[in-house]
């Protein structure tokens, strides 16, 4: 453990983060919006706090090791989550308690998209822009986390994606390789965002909304600048089509996008088992949703049924969480089916949440192997993903991850019910927050404003747990981690 090196890093991080207050200030200037002072104050405060942390230890240029990685990652999300709440508190145009502000900010940065604000349409433009930007920045962090850091930390089988490195892993220097892959992936992220904003604009959104929604689409976030979310654009079906395409793209492993970009070929996608499973899951759920919506005559025309059915499946299934229609009031099993789809979530290495498609695939394959083992007790049956056998320790890690996910889920749900929340709301709220999805069912179908402060704090932790893939946080509360 290198506490001083970690302090130096956090100081730098805060100083960099303080500059993200500049774009909302510019937006406030353009729209002559009074909330500019809130962002200016946050900018100064954060820069000063970061400087104070960094100055005394600025020469501690030690290499961070694996163990520091856990601490840095957890601090990164919690500290930025809390600092990101400051503008919500300082803005005179907005009345928010500390808990609400923290919930909103953490929900933004973890790209969950659950909101405690009712009356989003009446917010000043700078605050609206800032919420969307939080999601976009969160998405940037997630890509690095998912593609570069999680595989190195080896969370829940993600070592599957670790590039071969010579020598024992604990001696690997984290920084250079992360920086290298981060740069390449951010270019792709940037390009996707620009393309998405342009597409929304052509589809009929105004420029402000187009950029804002592009931010939250590519980050698989789900914040919107309207209470009605994407439902605000019900008269513009092309907006929904654009959203579907870019949510789908953002839910794919960014490493695949990188390979496709570098090789100028789409072959990489269709050779990837996870990508194929991702599409298969979404297609199956979409087919079930559209069929059931049609049989229950929820929408009048087949076109609307098809569009809303596919949109809502992709939005919930990738854990984005945009809504075009009150999906939590859809008939029968549909709301829960969609929530279950969000447990599978996006692909590993994407901005999506949930358990991740690759883990789901490995769980299925392992289940099938168990059946075969019952039939042939002595057979040695390898589990393969794309013709490559998967080592047993990865299968174990995935099962451990799944078990931890279920256990943490159950505990949090019980806590919420202990606090007086009804069962449907509690179940859906935990699912929506842990999967980094956003909207739930019941009382949290539209927004999270009406739940208790205790529930908001618990759910903020759930969002962080989900985003940090549970183990990163759990590891820190283990005595063995702190022992030398």
């Amino acid at each position: 453990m290198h506490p001083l090196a970690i302090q130096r890093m956090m100081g730098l991080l805060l100083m960099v983060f303080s500059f993200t207050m500049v774009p909302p200030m510019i937006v406030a200037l353009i729209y002559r919006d009074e909330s500019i002072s809130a962002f200016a104050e946050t900018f100064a405060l954060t820069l000063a706090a970061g400087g104070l942390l960094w100055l005394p230890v600025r020469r501690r240029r030690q290499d961070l090791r694996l163990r520091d990685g856990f601490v840095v990652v957890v601090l990164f999300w919690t500290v930025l989550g809390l600092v990101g709440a400051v503008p919500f508190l300082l803005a005179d145009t907005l009345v928010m308690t500390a808990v609400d502000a923290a919930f909103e900010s953490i929900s933004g940065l973890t790209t969950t998209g659950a909101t405690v604000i009712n009356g989003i349409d009446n917010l000043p433009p700078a605050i609206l822009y800032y919420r969307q930007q939080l999601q976009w920045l969160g998405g940037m962090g997630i890509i690095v986390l998912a593609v570069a850091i999680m595989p190195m930390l080896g969370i829940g089988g993600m070592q599957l994606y670790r590039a071969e490195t010579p020598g024992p892993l604990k001696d690997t220097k984290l920084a250079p390789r992360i920086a290298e892959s981060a740069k390449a992936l951010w270019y792709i992220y940037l390009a996707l965002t620009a393309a998405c904003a342009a597409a929304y604009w052509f589809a009929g959104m105004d420029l402000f909304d187009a950029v804002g929604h592009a931010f939250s689409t590519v980050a698989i976030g789900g914040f919107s600048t309207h209470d009605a979310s994407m439902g605000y654009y019900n008269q513009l079906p092309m907006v929904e089509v654009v959203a579907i395409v870019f949510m789908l793209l953002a839910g794919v492993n960014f490493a695949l996008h990188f390979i496709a970009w570098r090789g100028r070929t789409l072959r990489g996608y269709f050779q990837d088992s996870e990508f194929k499973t991702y599409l298969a899951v979404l297609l199956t759920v979409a087919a079930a949703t559209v069929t059931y919506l049609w049989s229950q005559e929820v929408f009048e025309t087949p076109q609307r049924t098809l569009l809303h059915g596919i949109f809502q499946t992709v939005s919930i299934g990738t854990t984005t969480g945009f809504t075009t229609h009150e999906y939590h009031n859809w008939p029968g099993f549909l709301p829960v089916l969609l929530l279950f789809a969000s447990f599978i979530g996006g692909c590993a290495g994407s901005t999506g949440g949930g358990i991740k498609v690759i883990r789901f695939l490995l769980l299925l394959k392992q289940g099938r192997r168990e059946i075969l083992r019952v039939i042939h007790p002595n057979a040695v049956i390898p589990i393969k993903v794309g013709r490559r056998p998967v080592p047993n320790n990865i299968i174990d890690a995935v099962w451990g991850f799944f078990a931890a996910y279920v256990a943490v889920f159950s505990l949090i749900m019980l806590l919420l019910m202990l606090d007086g929340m009804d069962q449907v709301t509690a179940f859906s709220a935990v699912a929506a927050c842990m999967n980094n999805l956003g909207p739930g069912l019941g009382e949290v179908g539209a927004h999270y404003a009406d739940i208790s402060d205790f529930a908001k704090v618990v759910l903020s932790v759930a969002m962080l747990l989900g985003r940090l893939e549970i183990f990163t946080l759990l590891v820190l509360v283990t005595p063995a981690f702190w022992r030398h």
Partner: protein
Amino acid sequence: MRSGLVPGCRGRSRRPAVPRTSTRLRRLGQVATSFAGLPDAAKWVLVAAMLAGRLEIFTLLVLFTPAFWRR
């Protein structure tokens, strides 16, 4: 005023919170006391669920695997 509200939008309609007392007595729903009120299809599904649970799932699943019937 509740937190999270913006001045000027206080009058917006807001879904009323579900009254807690009405749900307190039937948290586990229609089957808390008896399964008599369920439709037949639900009963069949639950019959299968009981068997699956008692046979530890795999014993049943194996019978639906092509590999089991081969040879």
